């Protein structure tokens, strides 16, 4: 009975991870990734590792989805900017 919180946290992290792996749209995936980061941070706290949970919160909840979103924005904007110009293709 004492392991019930850990069990629920594990189930949540598993469900969120599966959902993040199965979502195809990058924007949707970024939001599910942020929930996955939350679930992992909760799991770490319930396993009594608050320091790991702190770094997981900062990295998994904010930084990783933000990086995904910024790259999606960059990739989407590039064709629109190039179309009126002479189309000098910058890779990367």
């Amino acid at each position: 009975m004492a392991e019930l919180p850990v069990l629920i946290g594990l189930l949540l992290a598993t469900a969120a991870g599966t959902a993040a792996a199965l979502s195809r749209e990058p924007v949707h995936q970024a939001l599910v990734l942020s929930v996955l980061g939350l679930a992992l941070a909760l799991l770490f706290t319930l396993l009594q590792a608050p320091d790991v949970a702190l770094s997981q919160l900062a990295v998994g909840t904010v930084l990783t989805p933000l990086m995904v979103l910024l790259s999606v924005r960059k990739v989407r904007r590039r064709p629109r900017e190039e179309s009126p110009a002479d189309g000098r293709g910058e890779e990367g």
Partner: protein
Amino acid sequence: MNGWLAAACLLLVLGLGPALCGAVVGPVRSRLLAQNVATVLAALVLLLASPGYDRPAYLDTALVLAVLGPAGTLVYERLLAEDLPRGTPWPGLARGASWASVAVVPPVVVPVCFAVAPGRTTVKVLVIGALLVAGSAVCGRALAKAPRTAAGEGSGG
């Protein structure tokens, strides 16, 4: 397992489970709302874990999440402004979920306040609760607003 952890389990099953479902299905706006609700509920679970395991230091995690969560939601709202359609399929449900997540905050914060050692820790718990309510209100207002078009209005920030 004591009462604090039982309440945390209840919040995990009844709160974060549906929030995860909301973040997985539906349009972007309702997913963002569900993510915001999940942030508030996760902070409350972290708050409950502190007296549950009798470790006052666990409050720091909840404080960090209470600060980072609304900031992250506002950043998403700004970055996804073009993707956010004008409404959700179930506006009542989305609003109800937001209000429910705010309504759960005082029943969790007040008992935790009395459970922790009086002094600075009590103030910290109260600050976390105030941050959660204020952040949820700000995010709810930002998300309820009509979305800006990308070219229509200059973004000042």
